[in-house]
């Protein structure tokens, strides 16, 4: 990326004392989906640093049709979370967090997702079940998101209408095909999410 020094932050102090540099404004997008669906690949394809991993706590909500009490049991689990970043300019840095998916559980990433610009749910059409929880989560939290089918080996097993029907994704949610290995493809998928976020923010500001 072209590094354009800003008038306010471009000058590095050359005085004798060590001045703490001004940090950028951090923003984040969340990349969700089932295990092995290509989250880390997508982060690595566009991140300017090699993806890092840290451990985070997520709250799992045990889901089950036999739960008549509607008070699902909650457990906190430590999971590995991969992430990368893109320096937009010296005053603005975009982080991409790949959130772990868990089979057969609902899960709450409130800790990770709080303040996110939006989310991208990556789907492997061979394992559609793995991404229900992520779609539900973003819908429920009202976070702008898009669903991206990862075209493994350049092929998608189902057509998009079938995927939309199977996942019960609302018409207003963009559903796209992308390749998690290609920088340009990941960039365009993230742009779809950001356009959703922008139109929602503009609609909220409209009189």
């Amino acid at each position, binding site marked *: 990326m072209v590094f354009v020094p800003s008038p306010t932050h471009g000058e590095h102090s050359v005085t004798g004392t060590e001045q703490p540099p001004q940090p950028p404004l951090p923003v*984040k997008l969340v990349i969700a989906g089932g295990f092995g669906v290509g989250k880390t690949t997508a982060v690595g394809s566009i991140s300017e640093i090699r993806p890092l991993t840290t451990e985070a706590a997520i709250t799992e909500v045990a889901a089950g049709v036999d739960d008549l009490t509607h008070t699902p049991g909650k457990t906190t689990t*430590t999971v590995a979370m991969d992430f990368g970043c893109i320096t937009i300019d010296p005053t603005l840095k975009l982080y991409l967090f790949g959130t772990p998916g868990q089979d057969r559980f609902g899960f709450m990433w409130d800790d990770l997702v709080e303040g996110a610009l939006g989310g991208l749910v990556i789907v492997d059409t061979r394992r559609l079940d793995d991404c229900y929880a992520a779609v539900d989560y973003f819908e429920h939290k009202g976070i702008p998101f898009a669903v991206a089918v990862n075209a493994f080996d350049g092929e998608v097993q189902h057509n998009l209408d079938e995927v939309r029907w199977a996942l019960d994704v609302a018409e207003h949610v963009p559903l796209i095909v992308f390749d998690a290995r290609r920088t340009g493809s990941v960039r365009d998928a993230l742009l779809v999410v950001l356009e959703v976020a*922008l139109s929602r923010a503009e609609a909220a500001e409209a009189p």
Partner: protein
Amino acid sequence: MGVGGAAPHEAAEDPWGAREPVGRASAIRPFLLTAGRVTGGGTAPPIPVETQIVATEDGLLVLGSLTFEHHEIVAACRRPQSVAELAARLRLHLNVVRVLTEDLRAAGHLAIHRPNAGTAQDISVLRRVIDGLRAVPDSRGTLRDRD
């Protein structure tokens, strides 16, 4: 809190040594570091994962007197970075880093730049991110391990 794996704690020797996504943090060490605390002690919600941490002038002045993780954290924060990056590079659990950075902030050694709540709905920020992302070329060169 769940129990992590039993990877050795290597950060003290070489915090920047990890070239690949790092392994799981030590299961026991975090409790020693934080005396069992899992949040910042106060009632404030935990700092977001992208929160920027930067060493203060005072922190750098007393760096020589700080030990172990406190030393590593303040030293690493010469360059501003997110709490998530700090945790990954020092191979510490995210919540442990949250506790330790809060301690170091209270002591005046670190500044914590908590993001504003309304940023995600800020039209000008969203437009800047969109423009910046559009400028990313179709393919990238070799990834940097750090900047």
